[in-house]
């Protein structure tokens, strides 16, 4: 299913052993991408304080779009607002978004979100600061500012290699899993962690196949289905309308017209 182009594939490596939960990444992301004060493109996932005093531990890691190799959200988007660019970045066009939230349901990592206080809420998600990269910056805002280099950015292959290198160099420091390597059919964001990812609050994503294929069956089928339903409903509506017009007691027959036609 992988649709890798010949172009440079970008990726992240995020190391939970280094994250100090300072949230510089979150603020940097909000400023860089003009994110509204009520929504976010990045979270801090964490274990919380675990254990009983004084035997305590706490781990955190920033969490944002994984930029799947075969993104479920893209396959679920009926209007083409979400797409994958040639660098493997899952990008988003808010001029096309209709706020249907299919991508929110499709994403196994629960990444796309929206500010529900907005009048016309649109999807908010990480796009690897694609505009910033296009301007010539070498890293997205989160990775550029991280004071402890818990987030690093580069070529996808290099990120994976670095994850392996750290795990080999420090045996026992990390659990034996690179989150993002196989999840949802493989992603461009790799996590290494001293504690199991379930404990960090990461979505499990046990299915290794991306559901994108099945999504496509639905999303590609949807317009046909929708058109069929619309035609059918219009037919019913017209029939009823004619009947009601025949019946001279109707005051305002067009009241529900809009809804009917949708």
């Amino acid at each position: 299913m992988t649709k890798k182009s010949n172009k440079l594939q970008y990726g992240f490596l995020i190391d939970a052993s280094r994250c100090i939960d300072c949230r510089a990444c979150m603020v940097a992301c909000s400023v860089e991408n003009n994110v509204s004060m009520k929504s976010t493109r990045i979270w801090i996932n964490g274990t919380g304080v675990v254990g009983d005093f004084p035997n305590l531990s706490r781990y955190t890691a920033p969490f944002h779009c994984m930029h799947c190799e075969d993104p479920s959200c893209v396959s679920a988007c009926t209007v083409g607002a979400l797409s994958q660019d040639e660098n493997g970045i899952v990008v988003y066009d808010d001029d096309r978004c209709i706020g249907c939230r299919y991508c929110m349901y499709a994403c196994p990592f629960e990444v796309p979100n929206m500010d529900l206080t907005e009048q016309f809420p649109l999807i908010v998600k990480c796009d690897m600061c694609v505009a910033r990269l296009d301007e010539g910056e070498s890293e997205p805002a989160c990775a550029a500012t991280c004071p402890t280099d818990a987030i690093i950015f580069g070529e996808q292959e290099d990120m994976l290699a670095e994850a392996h290198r750290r795990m080999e160099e420090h045996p026992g420091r990390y659990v034996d899993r690179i989150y993002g390597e196989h999840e949802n059919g493989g992603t461009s964001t790799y996590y290494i962690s001293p504690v199991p990812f379930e404990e960090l609050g990461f979505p499990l994503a046990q299915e290794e196949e991306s559901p994108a294929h099945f999504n496509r069956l639905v999303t590609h089928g949807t317009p046909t289905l929708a058109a069929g339903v619309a035609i059918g409903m219009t037919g019913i509506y017209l029939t009823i309308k004619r009947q009601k017009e025949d019946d001279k007691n109707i005051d305002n027959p067009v009241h529900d017209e809009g809804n009917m036609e949708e």
Partner: protein
Amino acid sequence: MTNVFSRRDFLKLGSITASALALGQFIPPSVAKAATELGLLDSNGNGYIPSMCEMCVWRCGLLAKVRNGRVVKLEGNPDHPHSNGKLCPRGQSGLMNTYDPDRVLTPLIRVGKRGEGKFRKATWDEALDLVAENMLKIREQYGPEAMVFSSTHNLSQPQFENLLYAYGSPNYGTQRSLCFNAMVTAFLLTYGIEEPARNYDTVEYVILVGRNLMEAVSTSETSALSKAIDRGAKVVYLDPRFTKTAAKATEWIPIRPGTDLAFLLAMINVITSEELADCEFVREHITGCDQIIDVMKDYTPEWAEQITGVPAKRIARIAREYAAAKHNAMVHPGWRTSNFINSFQTERAIATLNGLSGNVLKPGGCLVAENPEASGITLGKPSQPPYPRISALRLDGVPWKYPLVPFKLGVFQELRDAIISGEPYQAHGWFISRQNPIQALPDRTKTLEAFAKMNFITVIDISLNDSAWFADVVLPEASYLERYDPLYVADGKIFIRQPVIEPQGDAKSALWIYKQLGERLGLSDFFQYEDEEDYLRQQLAPLGISLEELKEKGFVEPEIEKPETDEIVFNTPSGKIEVYSETLAKNGFSPWPTWEEPAAPNDDEFYLLTGKVGQHTQFATQNNQLLHKYQDEPRLWMHPDAAKVRGLEDNDLVEVTSEVGKVNIMLQVTQAIRTDCVYMTPGFGHLSKGWTTGYGVGANDSVLHVTYTDPISGGQALSQTFVKVRKGSSHD
């Protein structure tokens, strides 16, 4: 209810400002024009301008991304040793400090009662005339000592002090005694330096005495510690709280508050009695080497176990591990250590342990006993006459009550108390610049009482913080992205803070405000600079560096011939590290690091702890919407066992009472704290309704803090406040 300013509004506001500028101005704004001439901005006004952060006192270098007269993003400057290309969350949020909708953009004159928040807008001439008139009246009627001046660590402070000394007042309140007096006094007496630099390049063993570096983020140092941990360095962290630093430490020791000193003395006992330090080597550089074993003999790990609650074996093991790491070990000097009256002795023990490890003496050692800011660079300054002689006693008791407190540190809390008592004389005016005594000082009720004693209060700030809210005149300062400040020297380089955008409204730089005021006070001779750029040019004159060169790169590295010397001489009376201090003995204090029993709470009370969070700087940033967005709700931490006994549950509203005050706050039940402690994030519970984001959030710690002053260093013992907690009935 918090008034949230959405980013979309932010952009809208931007276009309004931009079009207003376009209408009113026929020449391009000078900042953009200068930056374009230097090649920093293109013809469309887009580009990056180097400057320096001011969201805390660490002074990271930054690159401000400017688009058509607006700053849209801040990046860490890779060439600056404090940022190394990174910025912390506060640094990243800096443009929201500048574009805060609550900015004060014209001078304000109070029209209602103090604290009502009723002001009218005024011109600079009217406001400055009014301030000068009152300051002259006070000097004439009561003498210059009746004016109190307050400011906090900032780059324009030399000119603030210039105004204060030229006016002739000895009364100067800074943050120092509320922060690092114990550390600075102890290191001055022991090493002859104020604050040793830390070097993490080869560190193997770090002891942090409450130094919460992962939350009190100092970008380069936090980064260096993190790298050391990643490399495998051991970190032993003493704190009654499981902080984010505790989470990264090799060992977290939830020590009983105020007893860190006993832990450290026992370490000295083990290292000296087992002769783990190289005494021949230490003998050359440390005073009292012959007697130290004997002097420390009673401070056994077993003795310390009784006091600290830390097992003797553990203390002894850590002492041995520390000694084994030799000069690759350090005990971090910290800022405020345990915040008890014995903090000075704690810092003396820290200084001693560093001396014993030899880390300041060896090349590559972890503690650097020289002032890294000086680096042999001497900046010029405008010429000026000598200051008038001051004969009045200082209200803060230095030196007549506190003989060993360095003059520049002072004892701010004592100064506040003298304003209230009127002893030895009454102060009548308060001139405050970039300070917020109402939040900064312990016991807010008392500080408000001191404010009420004043005939006239002036506050210079960028928005209405609590102190400005109670002022008679508020003078709007340009934000750190809108102004010049005097130059800053670090690591052999000279750095500049320069405007990256035009000041909004009528906001002006501190350099301009002090000069204007100086002229109105008849002190023009002390302010011999035309404008900010002229001041900076005079600073650069002796070095033959142009301001343009500095503006373009953000820094210059002048060629300085550093005298090479192998000789190690400390700036103390003996020229050695004074573990034994004759100066202390002469002043009637113990010449050795000595145990002092701290006060302890009753059974029904808790120690009240406060401490930093990564998203805020003291009480200065709670109105920043970006930090507000990503902060944790400030609640009172309590251990579940302590909560259970009191029938309290998570998210209960509780009433916290100390000897001097009471607040209501939501409870956070957590394992991350000792059962005998509660913790609250400082700097919330603001009084000023001029802060629409920060007002009404959390509770204020200053209300609860009791004023206790260490007699040697003058430091405020911030954790020596004990509180009772019970279920609250209603919101404040």
